[in-house]
């Protein structure tokens, strides 16, 4: 499935991150080709969220580098705000802006960060919401939406700056099981449309279904990375096997 291109959309080289004396990421090497979907699996505390936050330039890294379309980027760059527009991230807790309507949430970044006119930004937001089946909710406020709808709004918001890559941090973990399906369906559609995505998830069957490659993270290290089929069905590393065994026996 993975289409090999000369330059990966996003690439991490020896990325290290510590908080105080605790090292959370021990030299991550990973590259995502255009249109590629990579799922990050691993137990809570394995470093998945930190990896995504560093990738989104929200946290500076301590060593190594991040390349966006082959160009080194850093959270400490003066123009990190501009670079961040090429990266979309969706959080576990939605983090919608409660004082804005759904369409205002989505139109904010196009208007303020990209400098589109109010009408252009509004039009782009409504188009995106319609694509995600949320046209009727455009003028509602986030607190009147279900968790699944809120998370889809958050996806639309992250897509509004037309990012090169979408980073998703366990975005179904805070949802009722009945609401998980609609969010995963949205992601499947995005994958089909060719969006490059790095997805931290606990949903193994979803990963098997949507991912080109799966990477298993443990203790801040990428223990195993390979095609979704290989990693999930025939893991090579004993630690991956143990993790999958525990997840499936739950």
């Amino acid at each position, binding site marked *: 499935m993975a289409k090999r291109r000369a330059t990966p959309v996003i690439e991490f080289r020896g990325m290290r991150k510590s908080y105080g004396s605790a090292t959370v990421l021990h030299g991550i090497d990973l590259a995502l080709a255009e249109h590629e979907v990579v799922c990050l699996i691993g137990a809570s505390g394995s470093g998945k969220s930190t990896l995504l936050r560093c990738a989104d330039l929200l946290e500076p890294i301590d060593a190594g580098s991040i390349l966006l379309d082959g160009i080194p980027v850093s959270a400490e760059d003066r123009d990190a*705000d501009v670079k*961040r527009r090429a990266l979309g991230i969706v*959080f576990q*807790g939605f*983090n919608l802006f409660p004082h804005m309507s759904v369409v205002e949430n989505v139109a*904010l970044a196009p208007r*303020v960060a990209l400098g589109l006119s109010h009408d252009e930004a509004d039009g782009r937001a409504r188009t995106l919401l319609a694509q995600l089946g949320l046209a009727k909710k455009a003028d509602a406020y986030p607190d009147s939406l279900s968790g699944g709808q809120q998370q889809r709004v958050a996806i639309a*918001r992250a897509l509004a700056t037309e990012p090169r890559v979408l980073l998703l941090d366990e975005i179904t973990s805070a949802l009722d099981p009945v609401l998980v399906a609609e969010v995963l369906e949205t992601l499947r559609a995005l994958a089909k449309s060719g969006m490059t995505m790095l997805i931290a998830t606990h949903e193994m069957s979803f990963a098997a279904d949507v991912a080109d490659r799966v990477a298993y993270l443990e203790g801040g290290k990428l223990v195993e990375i390979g095609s979704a089929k290989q990693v999930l069905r025939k893991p090579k590393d004993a630690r991956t096997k143990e993790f999958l065994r525990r997840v499936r026996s739950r």
Partner: protein
Amino acid sequence: MAAPRRSRKGTLVAAISTIVACIAVAAVVGSSAAWPEVQHAFFNGERFANALPSVWGAFAINVQLFVFAELLILPIGLLIALARSVQAPALAPLRLFAMVYVDFFRGVPSILVIYLLGFGVPALQIPGLPKDPFFWALVTLVLIYSAYVSEVYRAGLESIHPSQERAARALGLSRIQSLRHVVIPQAFRRVIPPLLNDFIGLQKDTALVSILGVVDAFRRAQILKAADFNFTPLMTTAVIFLVITFPMTRFVDWLAARDRAAQLGEQR
């Protein structure tokens, strides 16, 4: 059905106990041998009515003072609150200045500040500096209440969860854009009740302008009192201040109750 009945009974009990308490206070005060003289000196109906037009006229000074002051304090207080929350190491002096400013003006009695500015600064006779006491009273109130209000703003800004700013930054907004569009609008809504509370205090403190010789409602009442040593005009002033602040105090309580209800709703 039980709940409304209980609350109706509760209202009745509250009304009776309030009346009983008022009668008790009136009985104690009225039983004093000196009550008739005190009543004549402080609560004289005729003098009250006579004082009302001129005290009311002078109250315009107080209104001007608090309206101008509030319009200035709202933005200045916010700027100070933001100055206290700057993170860039290069801007540390700004943060320090804001901290010292707030500590100073919250710690010094208002009456001392108004003496210093109202009498001290004009005495310097620096050309170009206004000598108008109204101006210096305004400056005093703005300086003091901006310090209080900045703390209210700061509490509001800190009450907005960091995940909100992170979400805004993740979209490519700068820190200033995140504050402007995401953090400040939410914080402002939360601080309206305590903000109005500070403004009630400010409205009362406009009477300090009388120290500088400006004839506001309080000063006018003092002048009337000095004519025949009857204190009733001061009561007139008190009633006018109450009439102005009472709707605001009720409004603040109503807002606070509404926010509490909204929060309970959120926790469903």
